[in-house]
């Protein structure tokens, strides 16, 4: 008897939780859960009016988020500015003592560039990628343990394409994964879902750079077992996926606990403007 009544109580409590509309509640939880599942199922439509509506909604939410986050972004920028200011003397001393020999290096690079262009002409290789980049401003910087991405202020209207490479100065930082009408999302190279083909020079080994959520370095996947990669070797994009141009520097090899990682050249936390491949 008591088991039956407690089971009845349980069913009443469940029913009440799902179906009962409380004070000042316009919808029951059951109705809203059904709506949520319907909205979620719309995710499978990647084109057409559903996609356009989603794109407009995202644009509106991003602008709203930009306004709400702006005071915090201001504080964060000031904090990094202060940090830069504090380490300025140290950096200056390092640079002063280093023999950069920039002029001779620049001449050497110019020579290799012209030689490379000549060789490409000889084998009739066509450049698949545009060398033009457009400067964009970062609206939102979403760096949580689950997501490392940026929202930039240019979208479909400005000619941003899905999969385009994104650079900070000379260095690769990520690629465009979502294009809205007025904004786009850039997935940073350190995000868990980021996988890009790279080449390690001068050893010429190909691998996949896989983000691990760390702000400073990423992991290497599909490395040959008996590789002879040395510390400080440079990692470039290989361009073998057909969407990211080749030879964009990403970072350098570091060894940690007998494992090889790629330390990014760019500080992914301090980005204000980035360049998107047209």
């Amino acid at each position, binding site marked *: 008897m008591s088991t039956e009544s407690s089971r009845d*109580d349980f069913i*009443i*409590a*469940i029913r*009440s*939780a*799902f179906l*009962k509309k*409380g*004070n*000042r*509640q*316009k*919808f*029951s*939880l059951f109705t*809203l*859960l059904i*709506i*949520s*599942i*319907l*909205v*979620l*199922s*719309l*995710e499978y439509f990647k084109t057409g009016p559903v996609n356009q509506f*989603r794109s407009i*909604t*995202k644009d509106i*939410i*991003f602008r*709203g*988020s930009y306004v*709400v*986050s702006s005071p*915090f972004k201001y504080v964060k920028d000031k904090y990094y500015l202060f940090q830069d200011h504090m380490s300025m003397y140290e950096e200056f001393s390092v640079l002063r003592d280093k023999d950069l020999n920039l002029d001779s290096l620049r001449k050497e690079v110019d020579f290799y560039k012209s030689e490379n262009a000549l060789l490409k002409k000889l084998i009739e290789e066509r450049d698949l990628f545009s060398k033009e980049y457009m400067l964009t401003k970062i609206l*939102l910087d*979403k760096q*949580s*343990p*689950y*997501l490392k*991405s940026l929202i930039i202020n240019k979208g479909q209207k400005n000619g941003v394409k899905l999969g385009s490479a994104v650079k900070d100065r000379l260095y690769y930082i990520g690629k465009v*994964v*979502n294009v809205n009408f007025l904004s786009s*999302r850039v*997935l940073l190279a350190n995000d*868990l*879902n980021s996988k890009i083909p790279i080449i390690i020079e001068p050893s010429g080994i190909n691998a996949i750079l896989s983000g691990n*959520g760390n702000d400073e370095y990423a992991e290497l996947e599909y490395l040959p077992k008996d590789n002879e990669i040395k510390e400080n070797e440079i990692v470039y994009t290989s361009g073998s996926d057909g969407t990211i141009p080749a030879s964009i520097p990403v970072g350098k090899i570091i060894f940690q606990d007998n494992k090889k990682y790629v330390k990014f050249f760019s500080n992914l936390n301090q980005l204000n403007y980035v360049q998107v491949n047209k």
Partner: protein
Amino acid sequence: MARGDIKFYQFLLNGFPIILLFFFALTGYSFSFNIFKINISFNFVHLIVFYWVLRKPEMLGYGLIFFAGVINDVVQNLPIGVSSINYLLLCVIASFFRTRTLVPNLIYDWILFFIAILIVSSIHFTVLAIFFDKNISYGTLMSTAFFSFLIYPAVAKIFNQIYLLGLKQEHAE
């Protein structure tokens, strides 16, 4: 205090959970930081939804929770609808416990919150991994749930004080 100021103050107190919910949904802040290589972050939206639906459901509408979920999905680059389902499931659990509880008790709420976020986090992980093929760190998800659980009593005390302030203001009128 001028009448206009009093009204604004009351509006702030009454709308506090809604303002806070939309603030966290729009900005996606998790106050994440590292201590001894351990990443510590909190899911404030879970704390807000669970506390207010469990204790003062009339102050936070389910429809608004649904919209906060949609906004959170857009900001966090999740399939639109996933967070809404999570938040609404949290509401279902909180509302179920509310109907079963006679005398409110913070320790009891605290343990229930842990059970609720474990269920919701597991559903979140399952939906993303199975239906959308997304890579998500299960360890990070669980550590966020755990740290959110740890701060629940402190957050509940603050929310309770704010609610009492709102009541005081209403009675003063």
